[in-house]
């Protein structure tokens, strides 16, 4: 007699909504609202950024790069934190959804970090006169990008994605503990070699700059939520398809 286990039995509310099958059901309703919200926010934010905020008295129009640069820099760190939280979910509760969210966040994090670096370089050229400055923040962001890329490479190296998830969770957590140390060491190294030529610290912002910056940050964060949800759904479906394929192969063999 084959025993059927009902996985939804004996679950609390969180396990219920976080169960991959259930997640597929309810997250479907999220995609469209998130897409609309992010489109509106981008529309408003970009309008403010281009037409309703002042030029900087030193940097001129290039200050507007900031409205893209800062949100991406913020997300580059937020995504890593999210990966680390998912990593705890993977290791401690062995939750399948945490695996998936950790996996799909890595390329998104890498993309946001690349954007942050790229816009930083575009901004640096007119402001500092060079594309690349070994400034503390840029260096730390570059290291963060390398960490993302290493994690993506590691995901690609494993055939068994379930085993990969737990191992990658470990390196993700080791990384998150290490990030403050890296930041500290890079700052130390930077002051040792070039007594602060450039500094973005202590910029006081008027509301006319602050408002669009806030809206754009919000817009990018919603965009991340949208992409993350969609990628999670895709990955769950892909794994489902894999399972079906394996099942039918097993049946043919046996």
């Amino acid at each position, binding site marked *: 007699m084959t025993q059927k286990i009902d996985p939804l039995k004996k679950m609390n509310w969180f396990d219920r909504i976080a169960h991959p099958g259930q997640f597929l059901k309810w997250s479907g309703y999220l995609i469209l609202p998130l897409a609309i919200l992010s489109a509106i926010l981008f529309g408003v934010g970009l309008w403010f950024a281009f037409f309703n905020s002042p030029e900087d008295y030193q940097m001129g129009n290039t200050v507007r790069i900031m409205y893209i640069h800062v949100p991406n820099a913020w997300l580059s760190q937020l995504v890593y934190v999210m990966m680390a939280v998912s990593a705890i979910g993977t*290791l401690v509760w062995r939750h399948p959804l945490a695996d998936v969210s950790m996996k799909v966040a890595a390329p998104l994090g890498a993309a946001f970090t690349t954007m942050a670096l790229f816009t930083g370089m575009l901004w640096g050229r007119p402001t500092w006169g060079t594309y690349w400055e070994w400034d503390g923040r840029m260096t730390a962001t570059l290291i*963060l990008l390398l960490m993302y890329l*290493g994690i993506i490479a590691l995901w690609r190296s494993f055939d068994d994605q379930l085993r990969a998830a737990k*191992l990658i969770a470990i390196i993700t957590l*080791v*990384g998150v503990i290490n990030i403050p140390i890296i930041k500290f060491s890079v700052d130390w190294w930077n002051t040792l070699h070039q007594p602060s030529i450039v500094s973005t610290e202590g910029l006081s912002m008027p509301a006319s700059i602050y408002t669009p910056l806030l809206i754009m940050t919000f817009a990018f964060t919603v965009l991340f939520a949208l992409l993350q949800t969609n990628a999670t759904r895709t990955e769950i479906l892909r794994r489902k398809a894999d399972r079906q394929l394996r099942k039918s192969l097993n049946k043919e063999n046996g």
Partner: protein
Amino acid sequence: MKAFLSILLRDIKLATSSFGDMLTLVLFFIMIGVIVPIAIGPDKDLLALIAPGVIWIAAFLSSLLALDKMFRQDFDDGSLLAMRHASISFEAIVFAKLIAHWLTSILPLIIATPMLALMLNMNAQILTYTIISLTVGTPALISFGAVGAAITVSLRRGGLIAPVLILPLTLPILIFGVSAIKTGTGVGTQGTALLILGAISLVTVAFTPFASALALKLTQE
């Protein structure tokens, strides 16, 4: 304690019985000291200026090269499986293997450092600082390496991915290691880099056996 020592002794015995591996590693380390002057020219002042950085880079690359040895063979032949039922905890075993790895892969490099110092035009004082800096910093280096090696032990191509994975994490060691050579060991601001380096080493050595052991356990599931 006896069990702990038995791991240590066995790993040392195994490493010395494959003496060729050890020799290759030291040769690689020294060759970096040869190719740098050839690549940038024999300007003695310039060499002395970049020597601390070059030595740390050489130590980095050589130790990354040796990483894969740490768990690979024991994983392949089932020793790690059998070690799970030892009379001491698996974390302690990993810690013993870490020490053995340092003694057999890093210590030879530190011993070979004077050769490199000669080629890079270092004076005696800088050489002393270099040896101190390497001794204090390399435990942290191989501790991170152990995590990388443990995570990738089931991968056939693990040899390349582990260094790429852990290199960003080890940059603080490089930064403080090199500045410890430049600023020396004096008390006060002079020795700060060395103190921070020592702190990083202590924390990582205490912490990474748990992470590595966890990774190895999860790999065996």
